[in-house]
């Protein structure tokens, strides 16, 4: 069995895990990241929701209960983490915009508006005032994107359909990475002679340099242009994940992808190593400290059976609110569900409560009390708690 030694080992390759790993790596620690598969962030809009129930996320956080992970990070911590995220994305060549002091709204494929905080540059102009005229562009055969959903909600709007020859978001995005295709698309747009103020295009403007493509299109037709995030397969989500991963691995962190943790080795109060379920022979990944960022139920960090909820890697105690019968709620979105509060409870140092391990830290949506659906705080919480847990972990290491 091969053994690989690190200062810090992060388990979970989503936004919180990658941010935690990046933060530790930038402080000079030798880091590894283990992930069983790609994260749910690839399916998301790519926008960073921080707290969507109030106009200003930072003000809204103030009203959260003391056990909410945001309260543990603190408002300054959240703001610093988000500005760190913005610098990382600039480095990655996928610039983001926004401030945690003010939420913004973006257009969705069903024509309503979603409240979010930081957005990729390609969605910077997606907050369309009702007074403006909107032109929606779609692609022939594109699945789950019906421009009339949008135009029916805007008084002054119209749509046109471009035939790209392929009908999937991934296929069209691959075409937009070619300069020749972008040029022919622009020619077509020019011929349309759009009278409207803004132009909305589904988020397929390439994998490599969407902001560059957007700028080229926008300059050519002299209008504000923006992307509308689509249903999965979602290109902006995939771009976000790949950009974060690219920065991480090119800064020298080691990634173990596709195989999960098979077993955990501990001695007394410390976790010594985890064993990877590689093909054939297993490998030992040894660390001085560990960060758990495996996500909640959807990502497999938590697993619910009939009689209990388990944490799947270290077997940590899981907080579950009340009885099973209390979890039901007929309204899916507005109030959230009690089960959303379940997860791992941590103290101010992001170490799990009622747990013997001293060198383990937890971040991301596996934390108890996040209520991501209710607060709409998914990626923001991931960024904030990932940064905070990495900070505490760095203190432990030095």
């Amino acid at each position, binding site marked *: 069995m091969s053994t690989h030694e690190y200062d810090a080992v992060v388990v979970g390759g989503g936004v919180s895990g990658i941010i935690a790993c990046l933060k530790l790596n930038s402080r000079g620690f030798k880091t590894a990241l283990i992930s069983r598969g790609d994260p749910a962030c690839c*399916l998301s809009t790519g926008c960073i929701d921080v707290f969507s129930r109030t106009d200003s996320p930072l003000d809204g956080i103030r009203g959260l209960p003391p056990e909410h992970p945001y309260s543990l990070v603190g408002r300054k911590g959240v703001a610093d983490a988000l500005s760190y995220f913005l610098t990382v994305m600039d480095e990655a060549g996928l610039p983001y915009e926004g401030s945690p002091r003010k939420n913004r709204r973006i257009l969705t494929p069903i024509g309503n508006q979603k409240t979010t905080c930081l957005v990729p540059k390609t969605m910077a102009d997606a907050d369309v005032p009702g007074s403006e005229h909107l032109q929606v562009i779609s692609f022939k055969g594109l699945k789950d994107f019906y421009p009339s959903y949008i135009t029916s909600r805007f008084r002054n709007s119209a749509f046109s359909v471009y035939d790209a020859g392929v009908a999937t978001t991934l296929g069209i995005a691959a075409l937009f990475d070619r300069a020749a295709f972008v040029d022919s698309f622009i020619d077509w747009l020019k011929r349309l002679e759009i009278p409207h103020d803004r132009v909305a295009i589904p988020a397929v403007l390439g994998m490599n340099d969407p902001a560059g493509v957007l700028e080229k299109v926008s300059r050519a037709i002299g209008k504000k242009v923006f992307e509308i995030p689509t249903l999965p397969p979602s290109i902006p989500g995939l771009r976000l994940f790949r950009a974060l991963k690219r920065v991480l691995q090119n800064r020298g962190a080691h990634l173990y*992808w*596709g195989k999960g943790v098979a077993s955990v080795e501990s001695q007394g109060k410390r976790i010594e190593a985890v064993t990877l379920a590689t093909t054939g022979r297993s490998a030992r990944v040894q660390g001085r400290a560990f960060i758990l960022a495996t996500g909640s139920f959807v990502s497999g960090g938590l697993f619910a059976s009939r009689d209990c909820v388990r944490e799947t890697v270290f077997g940590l105690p899981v907080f579950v609110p009340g009885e099973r019968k209390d979890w039901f709620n007929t309204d899916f979105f507005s109030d959230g569900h009690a089960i959303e509060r379940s997860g791992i409870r941590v103290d101010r140092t992001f170490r799990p409560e009622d747990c013997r391990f001293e060198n383990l830290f937890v971040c991301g949506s596996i934390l108890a009390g996040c209520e991501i659906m209710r607060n709409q705080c998914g990626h923001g919480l991931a960024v904030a708690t990932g940064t905070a847990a990495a900070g505490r972990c760095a203190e432990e290491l030095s």
Partner: protein
Amino acid sequence: MTTFEHCVRCTLCVENCPVFKVNPAFPGPKQSGPDAQRFRMDGERSVDDWVKLCCQCKRCQVSCPYGVNVAEIILKAQLKYSREHMSPFSAHLFANTYHLGQLGSLVSPLTNAVASSGVSKKIMGILGISTGVPLPEYRFFSLARGRRRRGRFRAPRKVVFFHGCYLGFNRPDIGRGIRDLLAGLGCRVIIPRQTCCGLPALGNGDITMAGKFARKNARMLVNYIDRGYIVVYACTSCGLTLTHDYPEILQVPEGKKIAENTYNVHELILDLIEEGAVQVDFGEVDRHVAYHVPCHLRALGIGYPAAGIFEKIPGLKVTILDDNCCGLAGSYGFKKKNQKTSESLGAIAASAVRAVDADSLVSDCGACRMQLGHYAGLPALDPSEVIIASLLQSVSKKKRDRRRKAQ
């Protein structure tokens, strides 16, 4: 092991599928794998001819957070389809790359001349073989014809080198480099008589021939393992076949034992360094390389060991690129019907390589090097070539220093 029933239809596999991205005829891994699997029955003849469009890069399987064996489901459907239908001539030809290699290297000047001539390109076109990327050249002085033992007999680490067909017949120079590199790091290296790992046969729907190759290799390898040797591979596709397909798909009885005793060559070198078994003095290499990670190295789940060694080489700048399949996928891209897919994917991966402004590209996989060397127009190196260059640099620097001291 999770099966198609554990799929939650999240589409992460689809986001990772190279073929789905460029070929609208392929419905993607979710539909060809878990979705269609519910309708596939043993007694019924396969109608899903599009499963053959999958290039078996295994990216779907690596991305699946639920551990569903997507690529394996598709591979089994491909094998079932091939069993029930006549395979085209090109499939039979590519299933036999090993025999082609034996013949090709024996009469290598003739083979290379014929393969690159205009007339034979036309004939190949008729036979369904694409000539978009030049076919690899054969070398007469194949790896099997060179020195087959290296290193002290009593060396602490005994290694049997499974080089596979590409290093064996087409690039024996790289194979000999790895042999000498391992011997230099204190290993006893043996290059045994070996056949093809069986992957080309599997990929072309010939499970019987794959099984024959596998059993022959397994007997030979287990013989060495029982005598205290470990198996080392450099070609990541051979490695994946040995460690995954032998026990799982081909059901070779010795498969598990082989899987437990098989190492990637760079994994072994890293182990030797980290255990302190050898002191390695890496010399400066002033280069910027784009490291295109082969899909099958990702599928092995062992991380990127060559990148771990590159970190230790002073002066070497490495940009890791692991989001693209090169599109050649063994013999996949050499088939006429896949030519367009392969070209599009090659162009995408090559543009990622060119975007990082490197002076050369590095990849563990011979097929990736062939394809991307062609499309990116950069020298394509095996990681071992970079490592050897660094070690030679340090040796010559030491010599220079000694000479200077003597003066």
